């Protein structure tokens, strides 16, 4: 993926990414959030801010004591 925030393109398909809902699960819980997705190949772009930010927060929140 070519991380240009204004017009991000899929490096493989060379088409612009479009907003799409992505689902992920952790410890038996399902969550969704909006990410950028390639309309051709279906790959999604997970920015670092999501991976190390909100997704990590979710993991910490539901981790057992």
């Amino acid at each position, binding site marked *: 993926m070519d991380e240009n925030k204004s017009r991000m393109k899929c490096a493989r398909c060379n088409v612009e990414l479009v907003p799409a809902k992505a689902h992920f699960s952790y*410890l*038996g819980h399902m969550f969704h959030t909006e990410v950028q997705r390639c309309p051709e190949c279906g790959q999604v772009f997970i920015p670092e801010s999501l991976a190390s930010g909100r997704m990590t927060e*979710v993991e*910490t929140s539901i*981790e*057992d*004591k």
Partner: protein
Amino acid sequence: MDKIIRETYSVCPVCGAQIMAQLICTDGCVYMQKRCAEHGDFSTIVWKNNYDLISWYGNVEPISDWKCLYCPRCMEAGLCTNHLNDTCCVLFEVTSRCNLRCKFCFADNHQDIEDLSVNELRIRMYSFVKPGRTLIQLSGGEPTVRDDLPEIVKCAVDLGCRYVQLNSNAIRLAEDEDYVRRLAEAGLSFVFMQFDGMNDDIYIKLCGRLLLNIKKKAIENCAKYGIGVTLVPTVVPGVNTEDIGNILRFAVYSSPAVRGVHFQPVTYMGRIPFVPDDSLRCTLDELIAIIVSQSCGLVMAENLQPSRCDHPLCGFHGDFVVQKDGKLFPLTQKRGDAECCCGSESPAVRNREFVGRRWKRVAGHEAASCCCYQAEKDGDMTDIDYFLDRVKKFGFTITSMAFQDAENIDLERLRMCSLHVYDFKSGKLVPFCAHYLTLRK
């Protein structure tokens, strides 16, 4: 037919000598049976088979080498090299004085001991506080009888305590709002509030006076200054076991001011009115069955799981989020160790962060409403942003810690204890149930 469930070690409740013990299933219940050569046979109920005890144990290893077992000599010597757990919380008695005289009290402090000064307490705290890590429980006696408690809180914060918890009967927190404000400003993280029921007959029986409205006022005052409150009922058969569902519903209704309920089945240590028979004990499995039954669908048994920090027989926990309609969204569920996601942190560290995260309120939400359930439509708990917002503000725990006394103490459990008491005589940390162990008179 009798069946041996576990071989372990205990103490003679008369002389305190370390003796062998067995957990034996007979007539549908599990009993600890032990024999002291000098004082005879003892038997105490430990499980009532509402749930399978073997499954509850999980993969915890039984004691294999009793020669390495120094428990409970740690009463004088502190944690030994064979102790299996780190310190999760340190209980620190800041006074022996109390403004109540409850029927049951693990501390049963001597009222005539003079309080140490703040500076003397600072020196003691310095010896065990690990900056950025320690969760200190200010206890007593009743800590709020001290006018200088806010200074003690500030002192603990300045020394680097990660969380400062106050164990309190709530009387002063209700009657002295400015005192609550000063505690909040000093950096108090949360309050463990003795809360035994939703009717005053219970308080008359257990504490000798009407206290329900006082507790409610104290919750209100803590909410005003953003101090999270966890309700702590002592569960006494025949006194408040029928009120457990009411306590839970009140706690949920009072979220986010109330962060959870922490049940403590009655333990016969400290101030012991009598040597109990089995009908006067509430076992962990019985407590779960009561919670599930009286909560009328609010809580399911599978959402209350054995402690993963201390020994499984020492407690359970359930992690929830209070939803807008007043229902509980469960986060805790049974899973195998292979699914554990917690990296290399010790169980005590994980536990400390878990309780700190849940019991402390999120800054800036002091005025969040607590009584608007029925009108609001619930949000989407699978939406990451909604979930994170909701869990931070309305996280809710149902936990229990089953302390041990001279009748039922199990050294397999004691060696896994993570709740340690600072012993002022030796200057060492001692497992809670060893520190307060009280032999028959």
